[in-house]
């Protein structure tokens, strides 16, 4: 199949030139981004990436590399990746606690995103119905506003339901 050579498309193409000029204009990213990355690295308990790290050895705490592993050979079969996000600007530590981690308050920390105050984590879950809540700074519970409330919140603390199909 023949196609117009790229040089033909590019040469004397005022429209393309204008578009590309515009798209190459710099975009100012948050200058604190680098600092946040270093904070995540420092808080991950893993300071030095080894020369011949296996993937498991490279895993940072906070589930940062969980998503890197998914879809590769080590990913559990029959599971789906789910990303949770929460805006908690005044918190310095956020974890998610639920049926998927035996309600362990320290089991699944979220990490800060590039958007200040927003936290995120990826989970690999089998299809099913999960109850969970976020724990802010180890003290304050909040349910996930992005998912339906759980009718079975029996202990006075609202929780949410995540359905993985």
């Amino acid at each position, binding site marked *: 199949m023949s196609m117009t050579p790229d040089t033909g498309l590019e040469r004397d193409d005022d429209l393309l030139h204008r578009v590309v000029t515009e798209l190459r204009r710099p975009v100012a990213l948050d200058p604190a981004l680098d600092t946040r990355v270093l904070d995540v690295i420092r808080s991950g308990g893993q300071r030095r990436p080894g020369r011949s790290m296996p993937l498991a050895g490279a895993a940072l705490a906070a589930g940062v590399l969980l998503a890197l592993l998914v879809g590769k050979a080590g990913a559990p079969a029959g599971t789906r990746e789910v990303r949770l996000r929460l805006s908690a600007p005044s918190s310095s530590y956020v974890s998610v*606690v639920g*049926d998927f981690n*035996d*309600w*362990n*308050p320290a089991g699944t920390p979220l990490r800060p995103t590039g958007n200040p105050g927003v936290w995120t984590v990826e989970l690999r879950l089998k*299809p*099913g*119905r999960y*109850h969970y809540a976020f724990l802010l700074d180890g003290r304050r*519970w909040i349910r996930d506003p992005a998912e*339906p*409330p*759980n*009718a*079975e919140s*029996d*202990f*006075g*603390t609202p*929780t949410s*339901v995540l*359905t993985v*199909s």
Partner: protein
Amino acid sequence: MRPIRPIAVLMLLLLQASVLAAQDRRLGERLDPGTAAAVQRLVDSAHATGLPTEPLVQKALEGKTMGASAERIQEAVGALLDRLVHARDALGPDAGQAELTAGASALRAGLAPASLRQLHALRTGSSLAVPISVLTDLVVQGLPPDEATREVLDLARNGRSDDEFVALRRRMEERLRTTDSGAPP
């Protein structure tokens, strides 16, 4: 007859062992001994009757993490066991763990067992866990049970996939949001 008796005793012991769930290590580690033993008995009951045990363990762990009293934890686990029994009554003896867990949630949300039975009758062959979950979530978020049941049954009748049930939930949630905010639907 004498040689038979020890064998009978042994069989009885084996039978007894087979209906007891394995001692759940998590209960012993996280709960006080009395609560752990009480919850373990409920877990054993569920196991003996073929009901899922993991939701019961999770309920107990949730209670512990949330700082609930021992009595409250036992009460919540016991109530969940009851709902699982009723869910199986509605969904039939072949219902899987995920379906029963979802069914228990549905009953807690106030759905009638008849809704579960209707779903069960319509969608034979594939798991009902997601349709029941969607039905429950819709009701919890304020959709009248009759309407929610009708919407979910319509999909089930047409043999739709789980993803389509989830999509239905998102559509209805959006509708509920706009209705709540006073915007035209």
